[in-house]
């Protein structure tokens, strides 16, 4: 689960990580009040969306179509104002919040559809002498947590890794001891920090690790991590990824979930405990098991088709889940055929067949449905389908199913 920047900074603040003062606002008036309460004569208004590239993003309702295309193409310079605006007056804060709230921000990462901004973060401006980078993440190669830092703050870490890998320094954390003070000191030294900034960075690394563990994160990124001209070390931006498997013990964080950030069909699927990812193709897929679901997408492509989704009904799906899954797939107007691919292990094919029949009986079938049932009770499942009188196309193998699906889309 992803967090918004203002939520991430709240967590950091609680664990003693210095962040710039700021407040989240859902209305223009609240944004103005927040700026007034913060005081000073310089503020930053930041759109709260999960996607990156906010500063270079532009608003659908405001920007010209050509500028939006430039954003999507990753242009370095685009005219107009984006999802991060520097304001030198209260009136400026009002204008920035008004442009953002309720409007649709398009960034390189959101795609053309964009994301509606419901919250802005109003913060004070920062005094920036140096921009660094720090992140904690799960390192799959060592099965440990890795703290990494770079002298190239403000740049995407993938880009630094490609262009200047020597700027990235890593510390592998033993879970028995946690991050050692000495490891934090080593890292701060490698970044070339001294004096107050050195001590501030050491303290920040240790606090970041505490935050990471306490919040069950799987990724925590501070970019940029800023050193001020006074040597203060501050987390200017923060990205968290919370481990979905640990949400059961992170009740407060779970309550911060923003369903508006996710595809509506994906949110609905999750409510039925279905793993669903929307794709751009025309063949809807209903499969049991994540690996087989991916393989089904792959074989559709192999035979010249395009999958409309990834959908794993799980190992022990019941009739209602199958029905819900079919409902979600058929809601997508791009879907021209549906491929049901089940290899029954724990799951019985007759249960799947009953689910299909119930769903089709209720909602009808607007597009061809190709079913391939294999494994436990496959015979019985096929028999149920053929006796149902429904126009379901049965397939005898994975390849046969994919070919028939692609042919169905082509109208053959």
């Amino acid at each position, binding site marked *: 689960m992803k967090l918004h920047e203002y939520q991430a900074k709240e967590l950091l603040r609680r664990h003693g990580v210095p962040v710039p003062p700021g407040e989240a606002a859902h209305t223009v008036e609240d944004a103005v009040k927040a700026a007034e309460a913060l005081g000073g004569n310089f503020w930053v208004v930041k759109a709260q969306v999960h996607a990156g590239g906010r500063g270079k993003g532009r608003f659908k309702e405001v920007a010209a179509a050509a500028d939006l295309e430039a954003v999507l193409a990753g242009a370095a310079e685009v005219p107009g104002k984006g999802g991060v605006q520097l304001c030198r007056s209260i009136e400026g804060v009002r204008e920035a919040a008004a442009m953002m709230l309720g409007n649709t921000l398009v960034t390189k990462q959101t795609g053309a559809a964009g994301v509606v901004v419901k919250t802005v973060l109003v913060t004070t401006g920062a005094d920036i002498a140096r921009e660094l980078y720090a992140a904690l993440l*799960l390192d*799959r*190669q060592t*099965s*440990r*947590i890795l703290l990494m830092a770079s002298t190239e703050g403000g740049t995407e*870490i*993938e880009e630094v*890794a490609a262009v200047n890998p020597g700027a990235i320094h890593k510390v592998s954390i*033993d*879970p*028995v001891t946690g991050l050692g003070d000495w490891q934090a000191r080593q890292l701060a030294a490698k970044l070339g920090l001294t004096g107050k900034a050195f001590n501030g960075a050491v303290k920040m690394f240790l606090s970041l690790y505490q935050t990471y*563990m306490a919040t*069950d994160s*799987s990724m925590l990124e501070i970019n940029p991590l800023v050193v001020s001209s006074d040597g203060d070390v501050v987390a200017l931006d923060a990205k968290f990824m919370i*481990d*979905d*498997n*640990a949400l*059961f*013990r992170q009740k407060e964080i779970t309550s911060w979930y923003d369903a508006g950030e996710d595809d509506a069909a994906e949110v609905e699927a999750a409510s039925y405990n279905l*793993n669903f*990812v929307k*794709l751009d193709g025309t063949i809807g897929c209903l*499969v*049991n*098991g*994540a*690996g*087989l*679901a*991916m*393989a*089904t*997408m*792959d*074989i*559709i*492509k*192999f035979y010249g088709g395009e*999958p409309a989704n*990834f959908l*794993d009904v799980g*190992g022990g799906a019941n009739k209602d889940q199958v029905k819900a899954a079919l409902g979600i797939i058929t809601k997508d107007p791009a879907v021209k055929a549906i491929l049901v691919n089940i*290899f*029954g*292990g*724990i799951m019985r094919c007759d249960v799947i067949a009953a689910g299909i029949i119930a769903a089709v009986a209720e909602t009808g079938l607007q597009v061809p449905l190709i079913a391939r049932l*294999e*494994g*436990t009770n496959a015979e019985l499942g096929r028999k149920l389908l053929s006796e149902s009188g429904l126009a379901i196309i049965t397939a005898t*193998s*994975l*390849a046969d199913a*994919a070919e028939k699906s692609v042919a169905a889309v082509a109208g053959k």
Partner: protein
Amino acid sequence: MAVLVDHNTRLITQGITGSSGAFHSRMCKAYGTNLVGGVTPGKGGTWFEGEVPIFNTVAEAVKYTAANATMIFVPPPYAADAIMEAADAGIKLIVCITEGIPANDMVKAWRYLQGKDCRLIGPNCPGIITPGAAKIGIMPGHIHLPGRIGVVSRSGTLTYEAVGQLTALGLGQSTCIGIGGDPIIGTNHTEALRLFNDDPDTDAVIMIGEIGGSAEEAACAWAKANMSKPIIGFIAGATAPPGRRMGHAGAIISGGQGRAEDKYAAMSDAGVHIVRSPAEMGRRMKEVLIEAGLL
């Protein structure tokens, strides 16, 4: 002989009284696995189906049954603890079926297992089966056929698909290992390949990977230098978009890493016989066996 499990396997189930634990303990027993006991804290001294003793701790179970393998169905919040308990009790083969264990819990459990004389399979896996001898896990036993092909995979049903194709062609399996779909797992592709390479009863291997991480690349580097048996390879998720988790916690392309194309390139470099269509795993295996004079 096959690898890791055979007629000498003495299995216990941790979480034997839960619905999944009970169901699959029954199925494994019906397949012929020597199920010698179970563990459910607080239910020690009772019996599972009147004939399998239940203990409060794994240590007790080992003491009274000489168990050498365990199958874990303990719910996610407690599963990492169950893995460590099994290792501490001296269990040699720990198969963790549980899906959804917090990654930070697994970081600790993985660390705890270092230096201990045991092997973890999973978590979030279908388990391991030596057809005709023993099954530890949730896979349907009836699709398997005893034989000489090893299968290693991160996925459950996709493994069944591969097995189904092999069996349909009359190609039996020595052992099938589902290593699990999580980012942190015990036995990885490299170790599974090494086991099959060393097994005199395995002639060739089907290796099924998926997007995410770089375990397939590491296994291919190992295979290039060490593997003397043919490998058929498939990677699931060539059509998956980056940055999206595809069902499995570990199946995500992130930071430009974990792409199917990189894994296929590593396979190609290691001389693995690649199939781009998952429907071709069995047929390609047959061709390769014939070419190698093994069939």
